[in-house]
């Protein structure tokens, strides 16, 4: 099986809803899980930049998030954020900040009011590779 993001529908809906709610500011967050390919726990984060063109996890929030994942034996499976006026493709800034080589970087675009884009990428060593998204009702064991 090549690179793919397998993700439960309720998690996709949670991400899109978060992006819609914070529009026109960029929304951001993580889905933590026991492994990078098993997103389970939706963790929306505050965009400390509160900007329509930039997002950043506040540094105290970031530390608490990683401590919490450590305590639960989790890793960030999905790191998501939204683009509110551009396409759901990683920008140069997104690529330069991508510091979790095993995570699936999900981008949602809320530039259109009636539709959205939901796409996933691996970003490793500065290289972007889009991967298909497979939405499932539940995970097979």
């Amino acid at each position: 099986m090549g690179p793919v993001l397998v993700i439960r529908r309720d998690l996709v809906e949670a991400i899109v809803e978060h992006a819609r709610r914070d529009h026109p500011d960029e929304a951001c967050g993580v889905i933590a899980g026991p492994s990078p390919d098993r997103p389970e726990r939706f963790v929306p984060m505050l965009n400390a930049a509160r900007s329509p063109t930039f997002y950043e996890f506040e540094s105290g929030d970031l530390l608490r998030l990683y401590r919490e994942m450590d305590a639960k034996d989790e890793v960030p499976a999905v790191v998501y954020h939204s683009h509110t006026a551009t396409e759901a493709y990683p920008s140069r800034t997104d690529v330069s900040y991508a510091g979790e080589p095993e995570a699936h970087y999900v981008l949602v675009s809320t530039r259109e009011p009636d539709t959205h884009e939901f796409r996933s990428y691996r970003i490793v060593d500065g290289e972007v590779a889009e991967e298909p998204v497979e939405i499932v009702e539940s995970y097979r064991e």
Partner: protein
Amino acid sequence: MAITVSIPTILRTHTGGEKSVEASGGTLAEVIDNLESNHGGLKSRLVKDGVLHRFVNIYVNDEDVRFAGGLEAKVADGDNVTILPAVAGGSR
């Protein structure tokens, strides 16, 4: 007692896969130099042009060093230093 440094996944190539290493020093700058002497290549991922890289957050005992003097932040034996990649990005 040494200083315990937590290493994020992306930097573990410099520590042979270890997620926690020990270091010594009285300031963060000294700790980073000490880390570099044992784990070559780590410093350039943390420091650029004499200041902390904006892509990393470093905490001494849970306090972001940006609010505690940056590279001059004081560190003492028994302290924890945590390094995390900043999670950020934007439309451009």
